[in-house]
């Protein structure tokens, strides 16, 4: 057992740190640090910079597809440095979720057609999994795709589509047949968002922002060559993809950065004439979250170490998802509590670019309660934490 990085890994860490210092746009960094809503252009700009640096935008991609071909530890180091530098989190849909699917299940033509555009952020993808009545029971999805000659006719609706209003393409799960096991008749289909019959409607979340959407699909014509894998194979494709998503959700480096932010805030806020961070009770609450995060980081490392020896992530990804989101939510609660009464003012404009007015109370305070409320979703999406516990009960404990 050795927690230390090898000399090569340390050199790599420095290389990443230097690169981020020199190339990460200051304006985007400021936005991320202040919790201001990011725009499509921010993502694309940064992702292109990373792509041009030997494919760094796609840490998980093998070199043959244009990725850097990093080891799991290198990926972790990169992630950690990005978190520390307040880097924008790259959009996972194309890079982390769809690309591995295309590499594993896609045809040569599909790989050639899509992977390059994903790597260069020229095509924006969204995920069409959830449906209004499915929720965590993903297999109950109703969106239907009926084969008609050389294309499918798709009808149904998808929801919670993050950044769907930015997307050029959507990868979806659709029902291509009714089977006794409802998982069986599902297929994995790529849909052009500009196709006639696709409508995108905003869903405003509790923080007042527009990030997610409902997508309506009405007699949408999708060419048969947009089917990934075999018809009816969609469920197993989706399952392999969700493992990647859940590991990505843990976000240890981001939470570490948030703790730093919490401590800074608690040092500036005053209570009984002294910095809030000197209040024994508040300090203890921060420590409790830090301990959870330490455990999570070490567990994450253990999973990583196992992956390095060639294993695939299993039920561990459920553990990382549950604990990761619990830590994220606990930190957002403490950030809000740190500013006391100043969590109350709601200044929506302060969460968007270009707001120049003086803050009400501590700087950035007005984003803290909306963020707290918004982060409630992390224990719901990606398969709710209840579902993750069911998975662990079955897969690990054998119930």
């Amino acid at each position, binding site marked *: 057992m050795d927690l230390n990085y090898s000399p090569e890994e340390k050199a790599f860490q420095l290389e990443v740190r230097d690169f981020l210092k020199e190339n990460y746009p200051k304006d985007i960094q400021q936005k991320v640090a202040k919790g201001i809503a990011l725009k499509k252009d921010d993502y694309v700009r940064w992702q292109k910079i990373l792509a041009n640096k030997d494919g760094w935008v796609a840490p998980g991609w093998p070199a043959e597809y244009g990725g850097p071909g990093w080891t799991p530890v290198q990926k972790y180091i990169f992630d950690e440095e990005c978190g520390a530098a307040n880097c924008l989190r790259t959009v996972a849909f194309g890079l982390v979720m769809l690309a591995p699917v295309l590499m594993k299940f896609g045809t040569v033509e599909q790989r050639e057609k899509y992977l390059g555009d994903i790597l260069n952020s020229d095509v924006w993808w969204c995920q069409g999994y959830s449906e209004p009545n499915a929720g965590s029971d993903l297999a*109950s999805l109703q969106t239907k795709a009926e084969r008609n000659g050389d294309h499918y006719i798709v009808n149904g609706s998808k929801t*919670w589509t993050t950044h769907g209003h930015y997307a050029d393409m959507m990868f979806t799960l659709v029902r291509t047949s009714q089977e006794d096991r409802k998982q069986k008749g599902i297929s994995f289909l790529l849909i052009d968002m500009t196709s006639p019959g696709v409508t995108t409607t905003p869903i405003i*979340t*509790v923080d007042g922002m527009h990030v997610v959407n409902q997508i309506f699909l009405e007699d949408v014509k999708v060419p048969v060559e947009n089917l990934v894998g075999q018809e009816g194979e969609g469920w197993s494709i989706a399952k392999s993809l969700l493992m990647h998503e859940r590991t990505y959700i843990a976000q240890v480096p981001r939470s570490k950065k948030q703790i730093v932010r919490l401590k800074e805030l608690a040092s500036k806020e005053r*209570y009984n004439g002294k910095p809030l961070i000197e209040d024994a009770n508040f300090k203890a609450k921060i420590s409790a979250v830090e301990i959870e995060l330490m455990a999570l980081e070490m567990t994450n490392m253990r999973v990583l170490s196992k992956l390095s020896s060639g294993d695939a992530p299993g039920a561990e990804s459920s553990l990382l998802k549950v604990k990761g989101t619990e830590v994220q*939510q606990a930190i957002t609660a403490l950030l809000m509590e740190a500013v006391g009464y100043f969590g109350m*003012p709601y200044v929506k404009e302060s969460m968007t670019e270009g707001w120049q007015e003086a803050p009400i109370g501590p700087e950035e305070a007005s984003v803290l309660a909306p963020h707290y*409320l918004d982060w409630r979703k992390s224990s719901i999406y990606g398969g709710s934490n209840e579902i993750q516990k069911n998975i662990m009960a079955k897969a690990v404990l054998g119930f």
Partner: protein
Amino acid sequence: MNLEFTEEMVMLQDSVNKFLQNEYDFETRQGLSKTGVGYSEENWQNFADMGLLGIPFEEQYGGFGFGQTGLIVVMEAIGKGLVVEPYLASVVLGGLLIQRAGNEEQKEALLPELIGGNLKLAFAYVERQSRYNLTDVEFTAEKKGQKYCLSGSKSVVFNAETADKIIVSARTSGDNFTESGISLFIVDKNAAGLSSRDYQTVDGLRASELTFDNVMVDMDALVGDVDGAFSDIEYVIDAASAAICAEGVGVVTQLREKTVEYLKTRKQFDQAIGNFQILQHRCVDMFMTEEQMRSLTYLAAIKVAEGDGAERTKSVSAAKVYLGDARSIVGEQAAQLHGGIGVTDELDVAHYVKRLTMMNALFGDRDYHLQRFSQA
């Protein structure tokens, strides 16, 4: 011993609930919250006509004399209806402060007007650095001849925007953090030198940052004794804390009912998700929290009505700690159990959650009250 409401209280409860049921659906509330002054002046007049604005006040000033128990009934209904009208700011904080600390002349001049719906008050006591410490008063009032000169800023003053008069706490002597040396003044909202930055709060109410730039007031603006206002402030904040615990009970009741209803109808894995025992237990936790909160809220109301002392402090803080717990046991769970829809702006549940979340910080959060309880 009788812990049931009197017939009068039950009638009051019925009439408020009926009004809210008929006139105050969620869409109406959202509309009010987002436009104009953030509530309906027409509703305010209706409240006056129904007698709601006179609930806690003594009969000699035109009130009903229902005191803190009456407030509980109204505030629980306010919680259920997510009411945005400035009842807490004007009646509970402003009105009780005048009733408690004002002289006869002030009470006669102000309370009947307030009860009739013609006068609204706000109470400015939070400062940028003060957090929940009521003795942390840097705002100053300096005697200049036959006048007082008020200088400083106050934060998160609920409904100051539409108040006719602001009651403000100020340091007239002593060092910061001393209980003595704090005084109260009542100031016209349009007084020269008083400026205001108004905004919406996360839970859809209205509040303001107030700046007093050498605002001159006459001697009769003083409410209560010079230097001796601390115990009045402490009492009113306790009374208001007990009142919002009742509001919290209303919010929690709604969240519990709506969540249970949802779990019985929402189907996943070919059955109502309420069939899953783990989810039933979460709802039972909500229910138990609701009943325990109700108990502590009644206890706090009784102790506030009985007056001063450590028992008041302890019971109010106990109720407030429970209100803080409700944020996670009821609010967070309600959102979680509703799934994605629970974090959308469209669903009323999200707005009950917001109110519950904000109420934790109001008048001192869970940590503050746990500490205060242990020291009382």
